[in-house]
């Protein structure tokens, strides 16, 4: 905005949101805040801060390469589609659903049961200890028997005519044997023996564990066994004919079973399998990465931005360290994968699956994290970056100065509108206080990522703020507040519309003057960025001229291309030769277009207006959206005409055209889907939309509601044809470029320029 004395000028620059005093730079604004409004509202300060942070972030992002932009656009896609209600995908976070615990109940029942088993197992262990406490080898068998009998009362022989395990009848040949642990009787076949070393192991381990661990190992079988044992209380006549195996202790299968389980438990407790050891190491490494990687990333980001907060050497050391950990993770997980593969009985398939999964997840981890590990600049690059950054800063400072000069002039002109606005500003900022919602999120109008950062027009800023407050009020269900706010909003919008009208007239007059200055700036800013741009620059230079060049405007839109252009992009980029549906695709502007709310539209026009830059910066994603004209053409309600001028279709899919006529979605009779017509109903939440009126191509047709109303009915049709033509040619250029036919590009560009001149003239006329 180089022209200084402009009565209808939009106020921009660093306005104080509370008193609308215009301040020269951000730093002044901040200090102004702290002095003048420090007591008024803490929240507002938060707003400013978040504004600064956003601006900073935006700058960082600008420096990043392409690709990121698109992802960002996708993320914002949802938001901008929804108007009024909320996309279910965006529903606010909710707390965990209801739960109910049965643990205490469970424990109560278990404890009652378990006491019994603890006692049983402990009994067995104690008896076993007693049985092994003396020197069996050097004791007479009679004496051993006496000791054994004293440990547990033996069941009376007469009471048990059949072996309780196998059911065979006891006789002279099939004799009775007593379990030394529980005293029960079984036949020889069913008898088990416990070796002394094993018994020792059990008893010694139990001594340690019993004190701490209350859980005995027991199985249903052992329940049975011990019950049987407890039935017998009478002492019995000894079976005299027992053989001598003094080294071992006889017992029943159930007692043995119980002891075996006990042993297993003891073993498990002591033994950690290899996989667990390796796994623990692996997790340790991963934790280390989680710690170190963010640190490194912030370092690298800062260095790549040309800042000098961190030293390059330190960063590269850290990088090396992190990389080493990655290698370790890789090695460890590989080891886990191959664990036991060479063993003779190959591991259980589930074990193998476990190992595979661990390896897989480690790979995922490395892949994911390594990807985020950006590279560092080399020393030379770093120097260059530092230099660039300095330049950037300088440029910014110049810009600030310029802006402040401008805004000072404007201040006088717009005094009239001030009073009402100031009132509004206060109302809203006061309202901001009590809402609990906002505190957490800071300045909501910004944090919602609607695509505006610094609003050039305080009016728009207000409108935008209020819109977001309405949203908050809605969310909080305060209907009365909403009404007040909406009333407010309406007033603001009316005034804004009026301003726009004035401004538009003024701006078109200023076009020529502005042009030169802007071009100079543009050259300086972008020419060195890429050589490739040159090509495109020529194509689009005609637009460039007409755009406002405020650097700050660029920032938000680079970051958050609205979904509008994305959708239309699809038509312009209709390149795919393969699937049959390609025939049907291009003629379907209907639902998307109809759905895009006013907000999307206004952003849309902006994005396209910035196109020349976009092409320089992140061209691959946006090459296709050649211009606002293209986008506009795609928006044109008459789908039938769209069919004709879709350039790529003509070139590549001519054959499919007839088939396409059967397409369900290209109904030409769509009533009034053109969202531009609705601008009056929809508050333009993107405050940065006003720059667009400066564009002679765009403004008279769409952006300015005033103009739309006043336009003759025939006028746009002719324009449409022109626009179509322009669009076609652009597509040809694009195509030619793709194929490398540079001479063709040249001719076409010339052609295009001519057409645009005609269009501009035509539009200038009615104005």
């Amino acid at each position, binding site marked *: 905005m180089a022209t200084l004395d402009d009565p209808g000028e939009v106020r921009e620059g660093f306005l104080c949101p509370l008193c609308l005093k215009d301040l020269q730079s951000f730093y002044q604004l901040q200090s102004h805040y702290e002095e003048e409004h420090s007591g008024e509202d803490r929240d507002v300060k938060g707003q400013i801060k978040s504004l600064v942070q956003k601006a900073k972030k935006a700058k960082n992002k600008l420096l990043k390469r392409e690709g990121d932009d698109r992802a960002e656009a996708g993320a914002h896609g949802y938001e901008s589609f929804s108007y009024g209600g909320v*996309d279910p995908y965006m529903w606010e976070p*909710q707390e965990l659903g*209801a739960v109910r*615990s049965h643990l205490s109940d469970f424990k109560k029942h278990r404890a009652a049961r378990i006491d019994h088993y603890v006692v049983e197992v402990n009994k067995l262990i104690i008896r076993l200890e007693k049985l092994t406490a003396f020197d069996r080898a050097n004791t007479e068998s009679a004496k051993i028997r006496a000791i054994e009998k004293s440990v547990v009362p033996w069941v009376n022989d007469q009471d048990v005519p059949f072996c309780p395990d196998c059911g065979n009848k006891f006789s002279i040949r099939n004799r009775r044997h007593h379990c030394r642990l529980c005293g029960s009787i079984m036949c020889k076949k069913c008898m088990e023996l416990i070796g002394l070393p094993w018994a020792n192991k059990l008893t010694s381990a139990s001594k340690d564990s019993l004190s701490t661990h209350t859980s005995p190992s027991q199985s249903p079988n052992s329940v049975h066994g011990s019950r049987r044992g407890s039935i017998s209380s009478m002492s019995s006549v000894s079976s005299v004919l027992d053989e001598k195996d003094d080294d071992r202790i006889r017992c029943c299968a159930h007692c043995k079973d119980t002891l075996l389980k006990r042993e297993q438990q003891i073993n498990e407790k002591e033994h950690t399998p290899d996989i667990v050891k390796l796994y623990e190491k692996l997790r340790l490494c991963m934790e280390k990465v989680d710690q170190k990687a963010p640190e490194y990333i912030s370092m690298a980001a800062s260095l790549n931005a040309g800042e000098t907060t961190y030293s390059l050497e330190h960063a590269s050391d850290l990088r090396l360290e992190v990389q080493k950990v990655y290698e370790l993770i890789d090695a460890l997980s590989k080891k886990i994968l191959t664990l036991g593969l060479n063993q003779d009985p190959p591991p*259980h398939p*589930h074990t193998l699956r476990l190992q595979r999964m661990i390896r897989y997840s480690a790979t*995922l981890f490395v*892949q*994911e994290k390594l990807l985020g590990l950006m590279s560092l600049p080399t020393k030379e690059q770093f120097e260059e970056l530092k230099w660039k950054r300095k330049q950037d800063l300088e440029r910014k400072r110049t810009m600030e100065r310029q802006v402040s000069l401008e805004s000072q002039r404007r201040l006088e002109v717009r005094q009239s509108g001030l009073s009402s606005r100031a009132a509004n500003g206060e109302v809203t900022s006061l309202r901001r206080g009590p809402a609990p919602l906002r505190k957490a999120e800071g300045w909501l109008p910004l944090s919602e990522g609607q695509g505006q950062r610094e609003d050039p027009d305080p009016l728009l800023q207000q409108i935008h703020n209020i819109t977001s407050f309405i949203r908050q009020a809605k969310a909080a269900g305060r209907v009365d507040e909403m009404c007040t706010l909406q009333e407010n909003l309406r007033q603001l919008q009316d005034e804004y519309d009026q301003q726009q009208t004035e401004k538009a007239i003024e701006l078109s007059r200023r076009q020529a003057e502005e042009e030169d200055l802007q071009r100079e700036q543009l050259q300086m800013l972008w020419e060195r960025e890429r050589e490739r741009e040159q090509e495109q620059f020529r194509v689009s230079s005609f637009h460039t001229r007409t755009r406002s060049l405020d650097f700050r405007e660029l920032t938000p839109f680079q970051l958050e291309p609205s979904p509008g252009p994305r959708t239309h992009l699809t038509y312009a980029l209709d390149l795919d030769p393969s699937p049959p549906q390609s025939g049907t695709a291009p003629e379907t502007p209907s639902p998307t277009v109809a759905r895009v709310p006013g907000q999307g539209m206004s952003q849309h026009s902006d994005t396209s207006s910035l196109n020349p830059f976009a092409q320089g910066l992140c061209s691959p994603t946006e090459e296709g959206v050649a211009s606002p004209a293209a986008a506009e053409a795609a928006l044109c309600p008459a789908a039938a005409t769209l069919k004709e001028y879709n350039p790529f279709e003509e070139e590549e899919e001519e054959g499919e055209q007839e088939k396409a006529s059967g397409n*369900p979605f290209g109904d030409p009779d769509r009533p009034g889907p053109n969202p531009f017509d609705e601008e009056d109903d929809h508050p333009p939440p993107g405050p940065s939309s006003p720059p667009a009126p400066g564009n002679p191509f765009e403004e008279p047709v769409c952006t300015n509601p005033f103009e739309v109303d006043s336009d003759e009915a025939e006028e746009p049709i002719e324009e449409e044809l022109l626009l179509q033509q322009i669009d076609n040619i652009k597509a040809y250029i694009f195509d030619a470029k793709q194929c490398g036919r540079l001479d063709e590009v040249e001719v076409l560009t010339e052609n295009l320029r001519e057409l645009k001149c005609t269009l501009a003239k035509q539009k200038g006329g009615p104005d």
Partner: protein
Amino acid sequence: MNVVFAVKQYVSKMIEDSGPGMKVLLMDKETTGIVSMVYTQSEILQKEVYLFERIDSQNREIMKHLKAICFLRPTKENVDYLIQELRRPKYSIYFIYFSNVISKSDVKSLAEADEQEVVAEVQEFYGDYIAVNPHLFSLNILGCCQGRNWDPAQLSRTTQGLTALLLSLKKCPMIRYQLSSEAAKRLAECVKQVITKEYELFEFRRTEVPPLLLILDRCDDAITPLLNQWTYQAMVHELLGINNNRIDLSRVPGISKDLREVVLSAENDEFYANNMYLNFAEIGSNIKNLMEDFQKRKPKEQQKLESIADMKAFVENYPQFKKMSGTVSKHVTVVGELSRLVSERNLLEVSEVEQELACQNDHSSALQNVKRLLQNPKVTEFDAARLVMLYALHYERHSSNSLPGLIVDLRNKGVSEKYRKLVSAVVEYGGKRVRGSDLFSPKDAVAITKQFLKGLKGVENVYTQHQPFLHETLDHLIKGRLKENLYPYLGPSTLRDRPQDIIVFVIGGATYEEALTVYNLNRTTPGVRIVLGGTTVHNTKSFLEEVLSSGLHSRGRESSQVTSRSASRR
């Protein structure tokens, strides 16, 4: 009110509570489905869950170095399996979560089986439904009714699912139901019963306007599940079938091995999330963008990989590239198959007539169009039958109804008897006699004007004219105009304000078209949040199965032989 998130939160909580270390997730058939809808394998792997086992699988290995998280429905079989498991534990420690209310006696028998004290947690986490989309859930029950009444087993499962949903969202609702449906009333009563019985569970923070549960019956709108769909999700379900987010592509000619079955989940497929509600043509162009994007990222070997830096860049981008190539080939295949089917089955033409049958009231033109399509050899017997069904439903009582003639045409076309019988079964299922409200002719002045205007202006898109009946019902409900004589409250209290949180449940299954309607309502209606559920999510095929399994048969219109046959089926 986000059901996907609700279930996801439950699962995350389970995993978190078990602490660090290697874990195995022990599930039953249904909970496997429930978890798989909200978590992908790689997502859950990151939480140290490396194995997924079914509680009923026999050859599980003893792995004492693993922690077991059991997420099970509280059925008798599961409790028995768990008792066996606890008697001989295979894992070091057990965290047990039931997806619904479990009886005290079951807890006791489990406690008594836990002799080795391996159980560290026993809780109820009410993730007892399939969360399809944030606003859509299903119970995957096909054939919930016998005739007009509930199959008792399914009634209890549905009650469980619905109460679990309420608990997971922490809603204690007022209940309204569709008066014309006995099943709806029954279900409403059962839900109420559970709420009363478990009143402690349902004690949530009171909201200003209490949430509302609206129970509907599919038979009130049999039209919607009979229509061909053109939005991505609905279309995929209609033409290919979505089962727990999985799509079986094995019948696609020339399909590659790793695309036999693909997963379409909005949770981790950005392209799908962005496009699931767009119509077919839009998807066509979007998929082109996806391809282009992909081609751009695809390394151009000959030129790009010359320097070491290039190679490094490639390697660093490789995982992303690979992921993307998966997405691209998946969607290209799916969309390709869809468009193949569309042209093969002449679906554009079929759909146009379907929409005419569903939305307009011109009998002679409709009849003419149906007759014309029945002559078309490209129209499959399935589509032919559905056209006749739509005709039969719409012009059931029309003075010059010529359904018998169409049935003859069907026979002449060689449509199998199964489908011909289904025509009358569908009428029996959702005919005028059954419907509580009028599907076809507008009721009040506003609606009449609307339709008149529509007739004047022409419609926006011939293929998507149809609005599910649910839209009108919900619209009235939101505006507080839903008639109490048709949709009464259960119990004495009524809602004085307009509802804010609405849960709609369709007995006999919802559809993706209705899900889209609800999605759009959510987005366009400030302050209102709607969740849609159904015993299942239907496409035409599954809907016809539902009709078949309900065992309703024709009365009179077709020959008596049909009557006896379908009667003997039950």
